[in-house]
């Protein structure tokens, strides 16, 4: 699938199966510890800084499996304070999003979740996400 910014929304890539995990890094500013439990903040599911792009980067679990890589491998080196969460493709599609494969040189498993993500939608995505890699807490 090719990049279609400016040419209308991309098609949903149905080769990404409904139960495919879409991994998303969570920086320290977008999680918090409450009663010993990690909570995701809605800001973790915001689109790219350029709002016209309407896309959120993810790493596709099916491709990651084919590459025999662990979700830990998507973390920036030395950033143990980051976590990784997973959303199911079916869950984001139920929120009017489209899933794209968008391989890059740096990340062959790269994908995008395309669609508007206003605050109310970001809030609904939070309980749909599950932690795959917990952040390492150094000081709170």
């Amino acid at each position: 699938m090719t990049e279609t910014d400016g040419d209308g929304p991309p098609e949903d890539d149905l080769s990404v199966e409904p139960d495919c995990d879409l991994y998303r890094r969570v920086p320290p500013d977008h999680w918090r510890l409450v009663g010993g439990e990690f909570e995701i903040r809605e800001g973790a599911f915001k689109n790219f800084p350029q709002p016209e792009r309407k896309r959120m980067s993810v790493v596709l679990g099916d491709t990651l499996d084919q590459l025999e890589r662990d979700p830990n491998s998507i973390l920036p080196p030395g950033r143990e304070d980051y976590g990784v969460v997973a959303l199911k493709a079916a869950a984001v599609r139920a929120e009017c999003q489209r899933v794209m494969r968008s391989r890059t040189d740096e990340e062959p498993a790269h994908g995008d979740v395309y669609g508007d993500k206003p605050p109310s939608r970001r809030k609904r995505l939070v309980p749909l996400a599950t932690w795959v890699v917990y952040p390492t807490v150094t000081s709170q």
Partner: protein
Amino acid sequence: MTAFASAVSQPMHRVSYRGGDSLVSRAWSGVTRMIRLEITDDQIIVENDAFTLPTWVVPTVVRLFELQRLREDWDSYGGVPLQDRHRDAVVRFLSSVMTDDLVRPDIVPLADGGVQLEWRRDGLDVDFVSDEELSEPTLFVTHGDDTEEFEGLNGVSYFLHELRDSLRSTEGIPA
């Protein structure tokens, strides 16, 4: 007293003015002039000039200052530092709403240079968002699955007392 003088002498008070957002920046300049911040890797020194500020002001200013100093790509997804107009929206909103008996919100950066204020109470989420996607800063009040949206400060002013009641701290309130 001119609006500008009022903003500098009482930066956290609402003042009447003409000319749109410029006064907020002026008020912000007033705050940062009166609060001297020295932020290093391991300490934050705050000095006031013989001026007693509401207790929420200094930690809020420090946090906003930190967010303005975020490095590019702070979230590994191309995130940019807090932008001035979103900072000003937060200052304007908090200046209208906050009193010292209210819980301070978490101040969370957004990837596009926006910012989200988050209050989390039992069964109630209150979020104020200013970012590049919304046409204007908006308050979201969520009870369970129901979310109400209030655009701009005018929308908030209609239920300010109710909002404050919701955000009032249950600890340390004088009897």
